[in-house]
């Protein structure tokens, strides 16, 4: 744990980060920007896992493992999403959400 910092302050920061991600997810009109907002949300949840593990149950390691798994899944998701976006751009020459109506190959 961080000396002199209570768990409330860290949870406040992660909540703010989470809702910035939600705001970006809804307001952005671009597939890549939406993907970036999802990254923000996932990062906030990873910090929460680590912080709650470190502050409340310091002799356990479950939160630590779950943070690693979340990062691995997020990396896989980003790679696949970008592959789909690039393939979509090849077919309809746009990555805006409103133009994305074909997902057939």
């Amino acid at each position: 744990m961080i000396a002199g910092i209570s768990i409330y302050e860290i949870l406040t920061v992660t909540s703010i980060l989470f809702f910035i991600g939600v705001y970006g997810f809804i307001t952005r009109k671009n597939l890549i920007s939406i993907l970036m907002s999802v990254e923000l949300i996932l990062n906030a949840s990873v910090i929460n896992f680590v912080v709650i593990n470190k502050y409340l149950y310091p002799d356990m390691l479950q939160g630590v493992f779950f943070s690693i798994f979340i990062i691995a899944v997020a990396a896989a998701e980003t790679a696949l999403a970008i592959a789909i976006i690039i393939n979509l751009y090849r077919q309809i020459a746009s990555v805006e959400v409103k133009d994305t109506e074909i997902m057939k190959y």
Partner: protein
Amino acid sequence: MERIIFYILALIIIFFAIASVSSKKMLRSVVYLLFVLCGISGLYFLIDYNFLAAIQLTVYAGGVIVLLIFSVMLVHHIEMELELAKVSKRILIAVASLLGLGVFLTTIYSYEFIVVENSITTTTEDIGFGLLSYEAGGFILPFEVISILLLASMIGAIIIAKGTKITNKNNDSL
């Protein structure tokens, strides 16, 4: 000392996260996201969890950001401005987000967390033993599943991004 560093990191994270979701230029927004991810990795260093900080720097700041920058450069003209939502809609969503944040914060601050005072450093050795242990509470099965998932997503990404197969027949018709 830790207090000051934590507040600086928190300010960096929140400021650049807001800049990242509200910037009009695509590439700048990706670079702001890079600052957010570096700040988060600083938070992990501060909390004495060096392994995850290194993972954050290599996977996110090294891998995901480069991937995003490449896709932005392949897809957009760099100077192109993004289309933003209508102002009324943005204000509505910002108010809704603040409302949700208020609910979160009241819930968090009204709960009494039983904090255990400690200064345990999570070493990489502990993580390795935990991930590969097959006794009760071990994580060997999710570890293997994650490796299969990474392999599958790598193959899937290659196949999807490759697009249509270029054969001799296609070349003749072009």
